[in-house]
Structures are given as structure tokens and as C-alpha cells.
């Protein structure tokens, strides 16, 4: 998959921008605050239909303008698709090949990218929900049914929470039955993903760093621990916990509590990793997902690497570059420094315009 062209109109600090891309690596460089991350954000919106920096889309519109436009061409399996995304206040309208979209889920399964960004890493590190979202997003690409199941689960959860909040104990049973039907699917898929990730994670981490410690991803599910996901046990377990759930007013157990974390020989990510180790671990994870998607879907996702190289030592930097250049992905990377010896398109960004574009 390749983004062939991008056109921006009143997006962030860009008034007008038109730029064409090729396969391979693209390197945006320029001083702080010039619009590098904004460009990555535009490419992210093109492949996720949302931003990684804000939940509301309003901040993406150029100050004082009513609408922003992101247009472009994405080539996938030899076919070129015309994309047009219009942001108006808090809403978005999306057209693919001049047909307006009604459902985002089909689009985001079709066009996808993997993002490394400091903002994303910070959220991933801090909030368990962000971690679940991160792996759920990967699973929607790897398993076509996952998105339906997660949507169902979220709705069941909302409906049941409403009953728990209002103390309607007698009406909970049917929602528990639906919960028992959907939850095991989510937990099993997450567990399966972690098992697939681990061998590759170890390999890629040692490739990037030359270090011998094992980087491992862990997963914990309360439902799995308490019931082994057996239907009968799960049912009894939920019935037993009803009193407690009514007291707290929301679901106390389930996939919404599943935990993911990484370790490096006994050191735990959130507490014991250095800044650089956090980055490398997250980057390794992205490279693993890249491999899995390539294997499952048959072609590589677009890689968006915002400010990935700061805080990396020169050895890791060189190994990361090597990996990128050997990979089959179209890559967009940013840095405040002009890179040395990069094979690809080097684009200098200055005050929301392109100063130079060399290949």
C-alpha cells in the first residue's frame, strides 16, 4: 500500500499543500513547530479517520477557517483510490472514489498504517485503556470479525452498566448471557496475539539493540484466571459477583480490565524502563505487528514514525534505519535534524510549506 499524493487545504498550520510520494522512505525535517507532526497527523487521519493527538477533530482545522480538507491518492494492490476527507467543526465527511462513506469500519480495515509517535507512546505507557485500544486495533486488521465483536461487547457493557447504576438487579441476567457469549472471543484473540508476538519481539529487540535480554509482552485476563473461560464457570462467576457489581455500579470483571505489559528480564516497562528502552520496546512492538500484518493481509502497512530517533543511541538508530530500508513499507519519518545519508526523499518543512524536496 502506497500513499501517492497528499493535498491539504487549511489543515493545522498548512493553508495549501500539494505533495507527491513514492515507495520507500520519506524524511520530513525542519525546526521545531514548523509542521512535521502535522503532516504525519494528516497521513494518520487518511488511514484511521481520526487523530492521535485529540479526540475532537476541531483543532485540526486552520485557525479561523470553517473547514479543512485532506485529499489524496492511496494505491493498494495496483488500484489507485481517490480519498477526500472534509473536516467541519467536530464532524468529518469521507469520500472514497467519489462515493461518500457511511461506515468507518470498512474504510479503516482497507487502508491502514502503523504509527510511532511520542504522544501515542506517552498515552500507551500511562493508560491501560490505550493499550487495549492499541492491540484491539491490530486485531481488527488481523481478524475480520474482531471489530464486530468488540462493538457488541462495548454495547453490552454500556447496557449492563446502566442497570447496575440504577440498581436493577433482576434485569441483569440476559446481559450476562450475552456477555458470556462475546467476552471469551475477545480474551482468546488477545491471548493468541500475545503468543504470536513474543518470539518475534525477542528477535527484533535484539536485532535493534544487539542486547541479549529478552523483551517479552505479557497479558492478564481476570476472566481467564477465574474461570478458564468455561461457559458454566463464567456464568456462575458472574452471578456470584452481581452483588459487588451493584455496589460499585459498573462491571468489575471482563475484557475491559485486561492488562498488557512488557518486561525486559524481570524489569517492568512502566516502572523500570529507561526513556530509550520505552521507545525501543514500543518500536519493536510496531515492527512485530508490521510482520504479522504482512503475513496475514499480504502487504505491508504504511509506517508513520514521528520523532522516533531522538533518545536513541547511534547503534539503535543505525539498526532501525537498516530495518526500515530493508522493509517493503512506505515510510514517513520526521526529525528536527537534517539526516545524514538517507536513501529516500528528504523534505524540508518550514512554516507550513515545503522548502525543498530532494531524492
Amino acid at each position, binding site marked *: 500500500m502506497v500513499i501517492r499524493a497528499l493535498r491539504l487545504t487549511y489543515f493545522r498550520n498548512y493553508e495549501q499543500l500539494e505533495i507527491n510520494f513514492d515507495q520507500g522512505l520519506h524524511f520530513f525535517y525542519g525546526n521545531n513547530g514548523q509542521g512535521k507532526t502535522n503532516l504525519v497527523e494528516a497521513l494518520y487521519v487518511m488511514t484511521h479517520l481520526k487523530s492521535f493527538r485529540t479526540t475532537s477533530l476541531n483543532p485540526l482545522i486552520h485557525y479561523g477557517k470553517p473547514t479543512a480538507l485532506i485529499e489524496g491518492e492511496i494505491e493498494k494492490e495496483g488500484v489507485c483510490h481517490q480519498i477526500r476527507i472534509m473536516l467541519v467543526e467536530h464532524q468529518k465527511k469521507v469520500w472514497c472514489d467519489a462515493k461518500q462513506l457511511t461506515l468507518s469500519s470498512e474504510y479503516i480495515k482497507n487502508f491502514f498504517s502503523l504509527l510511532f509517535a511520542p504522544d501515542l507512546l506517552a498515552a500507551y505507557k500511562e493508560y491501560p485503556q490505550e493499550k487495549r485500544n492499541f492491540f484491539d486495533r491490530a486485531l481488527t486488521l488481523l481478524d*475480520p*470479525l474482531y471489530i*464486530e465483536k468488540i462493538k*457488541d461487547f462495548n*454495547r*453490552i457493557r*454500556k*447496557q*449492563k452498566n*446502566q*442497570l447496575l447504576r*440504577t440498581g*436493577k438487579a433482576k*434485569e441483569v*441476567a*440476559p*446481559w450476562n*448471557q*450475552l456477555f458470556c457469549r462475546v467476552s471469551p472471543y475477545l480474551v482468546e484473540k488477545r491471548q493468541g496475539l500475545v503468543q504470536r508476538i513474543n518470539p518475534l519481539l525477542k528477535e527484533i529487540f535484539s536485532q535493534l539493540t544487539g542486547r541479549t535480554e529478552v523483551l517479552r509482552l505479557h497479558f492478564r485476563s481476570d476472566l481467564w484466571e477465574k474461570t478458564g473461560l468455561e461457559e458454566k464457570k463464567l456464568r456462575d462467576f458472574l452471578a456470584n459477583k452481581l452483588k459487588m457489581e451493584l455496589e460499585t455500579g459498573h462491571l468489575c470483571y471482563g475484557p475491559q480490565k485486561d492488562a498488557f505489559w512488557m518486561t525486559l528480564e524481570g524489569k517492568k516497562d512502566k516502572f523500570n524502563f529507561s526513556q530509550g528502552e520505552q521507545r525501543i520496546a514500543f518500536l519493536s512492538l510496531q515492527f512485530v505487528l508490521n510482520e504479522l500484518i504482512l503475513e496475514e493481509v499480504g502487504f505491508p502497512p504504511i509506517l508513520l514514525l514521528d520523532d522516533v530517533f531522538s533518545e536513541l543511541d547511534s547503534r539503535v538508530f543505525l539498526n532501525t534505519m537498516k530495518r526500515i530500508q530493508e522493509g517493503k513499507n512506505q515510510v514517513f519519518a520526521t526529525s528536527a535534524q537534517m539526516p545524514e545519508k538517507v536513501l529516500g526523499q528528504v523534505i524540508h518543512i518550514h512554516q507550513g510549506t515545503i522548502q525543498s524536496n530532494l531524492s
Partner: protein
Amino acid sequence: MKLPASLHRLIEELAKLPTIGRKSAKRLAFHLATAPKADPNALAQALLAAAMELRPCTQCGGIASGELCPLCNDKSRLEGSILVVEEARNVFTVEESGIYKGQYHVLGGAISPMKGIGPSQLNLKSLEARIDQGGIEELILATNPTLEGEATAHYLTDLFQSKVARITRIARGMPTGGDLEYADPGTLTRAIEGRTRFNSA
């Protein structure tokens, strides 16, 4: 532009109807305003008659013009089974198929805590009464294949399990005439999950 008051009122009333947007409401209203007088008159009479006459059937909750609906009045229909649907219009859909010859019951919705709809908001008292009278051998749950419809089916199963010998749920999934190619993954999953045995056991 200022519209005559009666035209304005007509547009507003039409726009309240489901699936009618403001644009269509205007088109309909202007059409009626300029049509020969007989047309709007006939429509008004029909509306008035419907509003005066139609009410929920006291037995099944379907649409009746008297105490009982035509289906509940029909003595030739089989007595031993009740097919439960969410909305009155669902009865007509099943009737059009001609496949079912038994009794109906209309719930008037599905359980949805977020919308404030619980069992007590549904037409259940009369269903319970019908079942308690005896003679019902099968309850067919034909609520919609949405989560809310499923939850309602589970609720009814728990409620009547001890009273009705056979409780069944209509198969979910593939619409007939539907090509496998056109089914979205969600529908297809439900269809595969709800598969029935094809060879004899």
C-alpha cells in the same frame, strides 16, 4: 417567505413522521395543497378513521379496529404456539410469508436499559396471562437479531422456561435470496453460529 398558517402546520405535522425529512414533508404538503380537493379530503378521512378506530389488540398487542385483531379473531389459526415479535409491523412481515399459522404476540419494543426500556415497559403481562391459561406448547422468539433483541429473547426464555415445553429462537443471519458474497462479516458470523443441522441425526 411567510406560508399560509394551515400549510405551515401541515408541513410540521408531516415532518414528525418517521423517515420523512423536512424536504419530503414540504414536497408532500405542496403536492396536497395544489391537488384537486378530493385527494386531501380522502387522505384526511382515512387518517381520521385510522386515528379513531385503530388500537392495540387486547390479546396480542397487534393492530386491531375492535377488541381483537383479525388474526386473534380468526378461529382457523392454530392455538398451540405463539410467535413473539417486537413491533406490530413485524406481524405483517411474517404473515406475508404465509409460513406460520399460529398465534402472535407483539412486545412493543425490546429491552434497552440505555433507552430506559425494561421488561415492565413491554407488553408482557398479557403474554404471561395467555401462557398461564394453558395450551401453549411452543413459544417462538422472533425478536430482532440485534443485541437488544437477543437480550429480550434471553429474558423471555428465563421467564417462561418452566411454563412452556418448547421455546425456540428463529435462526439469525442470511437473508434468503442473499448471495454469500453480499453478506457482511457480522451477518455471516451470526449465520454460521446459528447454523442448524442439515443431515438427519
